[in-house]
């Protein structure tokens, strides 16, 4: 209560005040300098992600409570310390034989489609659809992909007065990629809409290359100084590993047949 000002004489229905289009989406902010926002200790935003649009990985200093107005998508939330429990089959896209176990050096040369690749591992992905609510925790990296056919529209309450936020009463997004244009809320009101850079941009190339143990040219791409795509980018060929996409689940009869063959070979015993 001590943080907010609630001396309100009149309430107004409001529309978004700031719009930030990007390559495959639109982010809109309501002006949080209006007194009712200050009283409630919240900010509000609306995000539109076009089909095949990817909202770049980022984290925020405040909790977000999201409602899915339209469309479907996949939500990736990185929970620090949790295991990478989703993994690809490694060779599923090349048509080759799956490599057993990790740690084997794959052949990187050759034509696309014949390259041997390791299985990719990452944390759990969550599918959501129209009508869902999503809770986005502060400080946890998140990204969103619209793999549907219609625009994905979400609205979100940003609880800037939440005790999890130990900064001031202003939402901030820390992007891990791209150079998103930001400036909602108080920033936007002050005319400070500007091209922000991702957090890697502030570190020295050499220091990052040493930390990542990669070449400098990859660090340059990580910083992406010429990336003008904004916070939501087009990702046409994004192939995510979700249980629903599993080939085995799409071919239950074939799998069942294989299991029966296994039984015939006496594999039921331990």
């Amino acid at each position, binding site marked *: 209560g001590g943080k907010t000002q609630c001396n309100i004489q009149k309430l107004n229905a409001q529309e978004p005040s700031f719009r930030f289009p990007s390559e495959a989406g639109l982010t809109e902010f309501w002006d949080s300098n209006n007194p009712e926002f200050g009283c409630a200790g919240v900010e509000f935003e609306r995000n539109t992600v076009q089909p095949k649009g*990817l909202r770049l990985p980022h984290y925020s200093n405040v909790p977000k409570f999201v409602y899915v107005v339209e469309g479907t998508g996949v939500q*990736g939330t990185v929970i620090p310390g949790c295991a990478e429990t989703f993994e690809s089959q490694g060779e599923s896209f090349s048509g080759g034989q799956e490599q057993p176990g990790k740690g084997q050096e794959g052949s990187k040369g050759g034509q696309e489609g014949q390259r041997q690749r*390791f299985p*990719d591992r990452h944390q759990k992905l969550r599918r959501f659809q129209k009508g869902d609510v999503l809770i986005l925790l502060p*400080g946890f990296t998140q990204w969103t992909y619209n793999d549907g056919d219609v625009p994905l529209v979400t609205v979100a309450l940003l609880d800037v007065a939440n005790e999890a*936020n130990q900064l001031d009463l202003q939402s901030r997004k820390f992007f891990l990629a791209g150079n998103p244009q930001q400036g909602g809320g108080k920033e936007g009101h002050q005319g400070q809409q500007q091209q922000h850079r991702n*957090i890697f941009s502030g570190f020295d190339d050499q220091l990052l290359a*040493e930390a990542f143990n990669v070449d400098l040219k*990859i660090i340059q791409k990580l910083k992406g100084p010429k990336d003008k795509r904004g916070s939501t980018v087009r990702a046409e060929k994004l192939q995510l590993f979700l249980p629903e996409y599993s080939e085995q689940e799409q071919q239950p009869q074939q799998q069942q047949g294989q299991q029966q063959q296994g039984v015939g070979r006496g594999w039921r015993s331990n």
Partner: protein
Amino acid sequence: GLEETLCTVKLSENIGLPQEADVFNPRAGRITTVNSQKIPILSSLQLSAERGFLYSNAIFAPHWNINAHSALYVIRGNARIQVVDHKGNKVFDDEVKQGQLIIVPQYFAVIKKAGNEGFEYVAFKTNDNAMINPLVGRLSALRAIPEEVLRSSFQISSEEAEELKYGRQEALLLSEQSQQGKREVA
């Protein structure tokens, strides 16, 4: 009954002893934390602390504090520290030396590289269970993101995305020279 309860409350803990380390990399250093899991009364104070020893030229992986501010005091040695805000601006880039203090705000990204003499510090944090999220290494945010997402986000090849994810097998404390393979067996 106070002498059996409040009077016996645990109020101290040594976080300087090597055998108490919570994170240890013989090539890079060690970290010991004290939080409300170790001293329960810290939960009511919402405070915790971290004692770090970085060996010569070792790197503390770039990371951000998820739920706390951090006040880092240099006990011995020196380190180069860079801090980056949400706009990608470098808000601190300097060498810190013995006796100096730096405040790292919550969520700001920070990287520390020890100097030739190593780097010892104590960091006080404004949460009783302070957590960080590293950007590099085995526990990093990038490793938890699908390779396909990294490829589209950074406009890089699959091989480069793989290098970013698996270039470092160490967790938080990174050694100066890593000759390890890109994806060695743990």
